[in-house]
């Protein structure tokens, strides 16, 4: 009896190891260069097998094992390339931060109302993203399929293309323009970028309050001034850190921990349509009754 049981355990274990091995193999194949584009990528170290998955839970890819990586790719003028190398298959950044605050929430200078809203959101999780609203601020980097950085040097812009959510995009103006006055609040706000050495610094204002700026619902208001620092420290790693300046929700400016996103090689953007299989259009769009708003808003 005992022998049988041991044998059974052994069989199950073997099967498990075999499956694991096969799936790792499968994933590496998925990341093989030139699999689908007819474009030959340079022989770069492959991303780790889990790089294509959005990291769940706190801190995104923090603490991921260091993997051998090629150096940061650069343009002729020495500036880092934030997206895909010219002439190669395209890739995406995966595993951004899912929650912006540090582990000790007491370090976040919440205004009392903002802390209450934050706590409530841990319970109801009624997130606008689930209703296909666009993903503003850092929320953009925590959808399961990542983002693509599209640099258009000719127009002095960087587009950040979202795969998930409503499959939309934001523009970072790199031409030195200021923020316009009287911005209409929007999901992505108005972003201007500049270089601080090898770090792309993106300054954004003009947000609306219709999205969560991370998956945990860290609150913000239309006064949010969001400053992001992107540093491609090697080919496969994008460090990300944000500073939150929002006198509507916080008593002072605070800065997030340092996060990192992982490069997913040979990952083209594909068609992802949040609305495709959303079974609650009334949650996305509201019903006729909610247009009436007699309960919600009209005093």
């Amino acid at each position, binding site marked *: 009896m005992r022998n049988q049981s041991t044998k059974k355990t052994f069989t199950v274990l073997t099967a498990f190891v075999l499956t694991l091995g096969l799936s790792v193999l499968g994933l590496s194949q*998925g990341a093989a260069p030139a*699999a*689908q584009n*007819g474009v030959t990528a340079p022989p770069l170290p492959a991303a780790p097998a889990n790089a294509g998955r959005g990291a769940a839970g706190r801190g995104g890819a923090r603490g991921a094992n260091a993997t051998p990586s090629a150096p940061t790719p650069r343009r002729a003028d020495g500036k880092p390339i934030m997206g*895909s190398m*010219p*002439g190669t298959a*395209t890739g995406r950044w995966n595993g951004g931060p899912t929650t912006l605050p540090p582990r000790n929430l007491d370090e976040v200078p919440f205004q009392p*109302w903002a802390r209450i*809203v934050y706590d*409530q959101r841990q319970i*109801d999780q009624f997130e606008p993203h689930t*209703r*296909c*609203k*666009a993903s503003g601020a850092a929320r953009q980097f925590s959808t399961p399929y990542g983002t693509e950085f*599209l*640099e*258009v040097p*000719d*127009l002095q812009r960087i*587009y950040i*293309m979202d795969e998930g959510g*409503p*499959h939309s*995009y934001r*523009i970072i103006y790199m*031409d030195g323009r200021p923020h316009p006055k009287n911005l*209409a609040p929007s*999901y992505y706000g108005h972003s201007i970028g500049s270089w601080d050495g090898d770090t792309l610094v993106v300054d954004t204002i003009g947000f609306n309050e*219709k999205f969560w700026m991370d998956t945990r619902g860290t609150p913000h208001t239309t006064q949010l001034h969001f400053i992001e620092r992107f540093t491609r420290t090697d080919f496969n790693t994008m460090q990300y850190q944000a500073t939150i300046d929002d006198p509507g929700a916080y008593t002072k400016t605070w800065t997030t921990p340092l996060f990192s996103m992982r490069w997913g090689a040979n*990952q*083209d*953007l*594909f*068609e*992802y*349509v949040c*609305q*495709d299989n*959303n079974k609650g*259009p*009334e*949650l*996305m*769009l*509201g*019903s*006729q*009754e*909610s*247009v*009436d*708003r*007699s*309960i*919600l*808003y*009209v*005093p």
Partner: protein
Amino acid sequence: MKYFTGLVAGFAVVVVTLAPAAAQHTVAAKFDVSKSITLTGTVTQVDWATPYAHILMKVPSANSGAPARWAVEIESPILLSNNGWSQTTVKPGDVIRVEGPPARDGSKQVSGKTVLLTSTNKVVFKGYNGTPVAKPVVPDAPTPLWPDGHPRLGPTPGQTGYWGNPSSTSLVQAGVSVPMDAYGLLKNISDVDKVAPMQKWARDVYELRQRTFLSSDPMFQGCKPPGGPRQYQQISGVQFVEDLEHQRIFVLMGGGNRNERIMYLDGRKQVGQRNGDDDNPLYYGRAVAKWESGTLVADIIGFNEKFWFDNGGLPHTEQLHLKERYTRTSMNTLKYEVTIEDPGAYTKPWTASWTLQWIPGEELPYFLCQDNRP
């Protein structure tokens, strides 16, 4: 605390009501245009969001009971802004008189055909049912080119702009002219057979969609994307971003949900991406393209059947195959030509074409189909 009450109440409202949702639509899709009502009341809120702004108002009851709350649907904030409107053209506390068709479902909603501010006795809004305001004509210039000589589909360096004001907002076969509104609703239902060489079943489906005022439009009902030629017939326009470094062109949508899609110029096949969309049929299909002298020639297959590829509700099947030609004939004009092959829905291939106007100095308007609520 107030916030929580609102949140909880909001949740309750959403859960208990399962009435159809409302996104972009012709007025008749939601409102009974054969009727007209007039209401006078006090503005409580202006809800400034796409696809339609709403004025919320309280209308005193005849029998001194509680006032009734009404929502007045007006135009999209984008068209309103183009007409000189702002969020404060009418303000909470203003008394307005509204005339227009009531909602078909009996809810307290009215489409504002005219909105009159009683303090000045001036009409501040006249419904325009999606018809865009003509943009001022700017001096034209030759087609801008890339250094290698092929036309630019986007702005020149240092400039901004997008393609808007389509010369046609509904798909009709070449050589045929039938009167329709800006959303593709036929003025005369007897014109159904003129629109395209439809198979019998497709013709009947088209007629049904027209007879029901386009109210079954997946974009209206659930903000599904405007795939195919429809993306070039949206009020809010499109933008092209040419990524020369990776031989592809992004099309950024002004209509629907501000989606992006890609046309590949790198010679790849029209197959799905493993671990991506695989070989699923898609809303925007699989597009490849190449330059033939001054024209971008695109080929798209792999469509699903979950969207309308035309504002007016012309049917298509998964066999839909589009051959498109994009020619920037000058700085200010983009000619779009499309050949529609769908042996599942049409008796023969057919063509249509129209032009888009370059709107200089502006980004794509910020339009989101599902912005309005909740």
